[in-house]
């Protein structure tokens, strides 16, 4: 199997790699680039723990082959903090206690970020709908939804940061 050359940007830094054609983006991120924020849980696209943002769209990196994202721009949880300051979503998750075991958290935050990027002031119903893409087996979701709404209210700070 011939290796495939790929070029993409991860958290605003250009990366050039030679990867296996049957390598998933999650494997590349975790094993080649040490970006271990995305987690593998089901490995079949059901749970959302491996979500990363590719060209503005939240994707399940366990279902994406790395050669498919050639030329794309990828954001992982490691790339959210700016100048030593956490992203408003990360702060809200901490303030509202929306993290328990933490396994789903990076996927939750990135899914929520993609929502806030296209709709800065979502209604509670919309947040629930978007967040239902991801599975959390600890929190019962209430605190996660509260945290996303809280981050959306920090509207000004959010837009300055982004």
């Amino acid at each position, binding site marked *: *199997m*011939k290796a*495939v050359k790929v070029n993409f940007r991860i958290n605003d830094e250009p990366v050039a790699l030679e990867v*296996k*054609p*049957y*390598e*998933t983006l999650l494997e590349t991120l975790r094993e080649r680039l040490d970006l271990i924020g995305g987690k*593998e849980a089901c*490995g*079949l*696209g*059901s749970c*959302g723990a491996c*979500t990363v943002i590719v060209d503005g*769209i*939240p*994707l*399940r990196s*366990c*279902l*994406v*082959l790395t*050669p*498919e994202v050639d030329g794309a721009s990828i954001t992982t949880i490691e790339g959210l903090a700016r100048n030593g300051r956490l992203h408003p979503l990360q702060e809200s998750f901490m303030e509202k206690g929306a993290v328990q075991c933490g396994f789903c958290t990076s996927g939750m935050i990135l*899914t929520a970020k993609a929502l806030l990027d296209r709709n800065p002031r979502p209604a509670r119903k919309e947040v629930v*709908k*978007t967040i*239902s*893409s*991801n599975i959390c087996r600890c929190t019962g979701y209430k605190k996660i939804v509260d945290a996303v709404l809280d981050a959306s209210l920090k509207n000004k700070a959010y837009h300055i940061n982004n």
Partner: protein
Amino acid sequence: MILPKFNYKKAEDIAAAIALYEKAKGRARYLAGGTDLIPRVKLRLSTPGTIIDLKGIEQLHTISRQRGSLIIGANVTLFELKNHDVVKNHFPALYESLDATSCETLQMRGTIGGNILQNTRCLLYNKSLEWRTARGFCYKMGGESCNVVPGASECFSNYCSDNALSLLSLSASVNLAGPGGERKIKLEKLFSGNGMDPFTMRPGEILTEIRVPVKASSGAYEKLRVRNAIDYPLLGVAVSIRNGSGRVCVGGIGPAPRVYPLKDLSKTSLKEVAQHARQEAKPVSNAALSPGYRKKMVQTLTQRAVKRALKEEK
């Protein structure tokens, strides 16, 4: 879960994709969103030598209107289609089925073509290779019996696309391109009714576009599932009504969806259709809910969907 070894090729246009397929001598699979294919490959239900990525084909990624039809490229994602004006305003059944498909993140990745061409599912089939080897292979895996119904001579796997049902209710047709040229068929003709090989597509053919006549309709989609957030349908019913008559489509039970015409909108004809659909549904215990319950719900959801569709019309 680790993927088996395969080659990756990206096609720039349809002709190139077909050429790549022919070069791989039948051991190739086309990849669009990958939300159905990649889990299947991970479970070793499909073991292609080459994966041909169709996402680079611009032509498959457009929605246009031509001679009274909405032409939807097969690579349009479910989320894009859901937010398209014509779908929102003219095809309520399609809007509802798109909205009910899986979850938002997967809607942004999954394509309409891939959703229609997803393989049939069964509780005892969509399992890891180790699980299946221990249990013994069934017809759909190349074995010699059915693991769900002892002594059965056919495969009862379920076709679980939500959107094919609403597109059928809207009388959609599809365009296929392959080594033997292009052809246009009605969506109904895409289904073989054989659970082992559910589609009538010839080797190497690509679903290129879906055509839906643009006429205002009222409609609804009803879906039975355990978790509203993500599951495949355990039963789906789509109804679209245009000019006083309609089409009801029932899926999620068996390898092909069934279409029933609704000649008029009277209570008696609705009851007849709902009862008929229930009689013809043959669920077996290969899904998360019991076959008896799913069979009863065919009638209930058919009536519910039609009633909801009619209320919108008033």
